[in-house]
């Protein structure tokens, strides 16, 4: 397997707030890698740093994509190298139609024909978008906007697709649907870096997982192994293990995850 993305020891500040405290991560081509962690752990910050969206960051460390350094580059150039990003909270263009949003996703491309085909493909993934094609994106439901944001990110034909909490605010059925599509996207050869709160779904649908706490990774491994791990089960999957049932000390430390 080849490494598509290699993040080495990055540190990110928001002015004086030390958000990422030395995180390393590598993403193998053709896999789904998921980053899990609590609110405020720094998951979104890692993706934003990767996309070059935080000015002058990372403060330390390096980011390599396909063997080339991308830290310190402009977002616009990083996108052109083949990375797509679906930000937390969708960020669709609210007063552009669904079709226009999708075509903006292909902004960097010149091959009209390929763009047309990809648009068809995206509408096949998300048939509801085809019904809403001439509607302003701002008038879509939250779930539909999420689908649009994913579809828009696919329109650039990325090698690496970064998704920030795609399941946020979606009904359980829709969450299943989204994960199914994420797997389908992977089958087409797109590598995926997924940030999630929904640990169970994320681990069940990914190849590798990392757990982030306070800006540092505290655990990494195959997703199937993480699913079986006692700590992960207790803190991130909300399951009670034998020991914790006896001592209620640990009860209190239980974190509730969906």
């Amino acid at each position, binding site marked *: 397997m080849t490494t598509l993305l290699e993040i080495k020891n990055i540190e990110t500040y928001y002015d004086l707030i030390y958000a990422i405290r030395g995180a390393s991560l590598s993403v193998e081509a053709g896999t789904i890698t998921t980053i899990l962690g609590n609110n405020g752990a720094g998951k979104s910050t890692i993706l934003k740093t990767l996309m070059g969206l935080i000015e002058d960051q990372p403060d330390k460390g390096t980011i390599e994509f396909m063997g080339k350094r991308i830290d310190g580059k402009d977002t616009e150039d990083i996108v052109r190298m083949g990375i797509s990003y679906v930000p937390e909270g969708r*960020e669709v263009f609210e007063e552009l139609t669904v079709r226009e949003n999708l075509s903006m996703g292909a902004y960097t491309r010149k091959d009209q024909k390929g763009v047309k085909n990809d648009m068809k493909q995206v509408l096949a993934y998300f048939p509801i978008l085809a019904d809403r094609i001439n509607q302003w994106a701002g008038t879509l439901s939250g779930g539909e906007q999420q689908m649009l944001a994913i579809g828009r990110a696919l329109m650039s034909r990325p090698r690496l697709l970064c998704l920030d909490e795609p399941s946020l605010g979606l009904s359980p059925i829709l969450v299943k649907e989204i994960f199914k599509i994420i797997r389908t996207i992977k089958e087409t050869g797109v590598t995926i870096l997924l940030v999630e709160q929904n640990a169970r779904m994320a681990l069940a649908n990914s190849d590798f997982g990392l757990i982030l706490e306070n800006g540092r990774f505290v655990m990494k491994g195959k997703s199937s192994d993480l699913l079986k791990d006692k700590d992960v089960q207790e803190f991130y999957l909300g399951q009670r293990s034998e020991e914790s049932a006896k001592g209620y000390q640990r009860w209190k430390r239980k974190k509730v995850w969906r």
Partner: protein
Amino acid sequence: MLDFFQMILSGIAVGSSYALMALAMVIIYKTSEVVNFAQGEMALASSYFTFMLLTSYGFSFIAAFISAYLFALLLGAVLEFAILRRAKEPNLLGLIIITIGMEFMLLGFVSWKFGADQQIFPFPISPYDSISIGGAFFSMLELISLVIAIFIMVLLFFFFRYSKLGMAMKATQQNPVAARIMGIRTKRIMMLTWGISSMVGCTAGLLISPMLMEPFMMWDSMLKGFSSAVLGGMTSLPGAVAGAYILGIIENLFGGYVSIEFKSVVAFAIIVLILCVKPSGLFARHYVKKL
């Protein structure tokens, strides 16, 4: 009745220059939320530049007008790049002061270079030629202004609706971060927005020049254009145009039936009224953000 018809026609005639100035201001306001008070003086500088090419360098009209648009594009882009972009996290007041500062710099420069006297702008059509429509008079120049203004509006409409660049400008207006994620170079878009706005304003300047060419020639149109833009909701291009023609017509009707002395004041009375009753303007499309 004829009077009434004539007043409407005159209203439409002045409305064209208001509309162009209003469009120019709305284009900038939409992308950067800057109320560009230098808009009139940017058009002024472009007009005087054209004047200079025509009178001192013997340019043909075609060559001079093409150069004028290039100059306007460049002027807009340079002002954005050299001044506005340098403002670090500016607030609304800061931006207003910056554009007012630019306004007086340009005004000062033009007055210094060309003097404060009125000049004659050589134009192929005399401002005194006119045609009669059902007994009412419409000067040729006004007619041409109207045609050109409508042409520019249609051009802008198609540009924003169908061109990739126009759409990228709208995307940048709506969500700059998301636009960058699409690979849109938003800084360049910003420069270009200023350039295009400056060209639209330059059109107004060139159409006013044959009637009046002096350093304060743009003030009236600028202020009325701004009023029209506010009337139309400040963010809507069609709204700005509608606002401009409504303003032009009301102004002329007021001048004809009520008081000619207070004709110019009407615009501001309307603004005050609108801001009290419907602060978002008459035509602003309301869009409720979903969370």
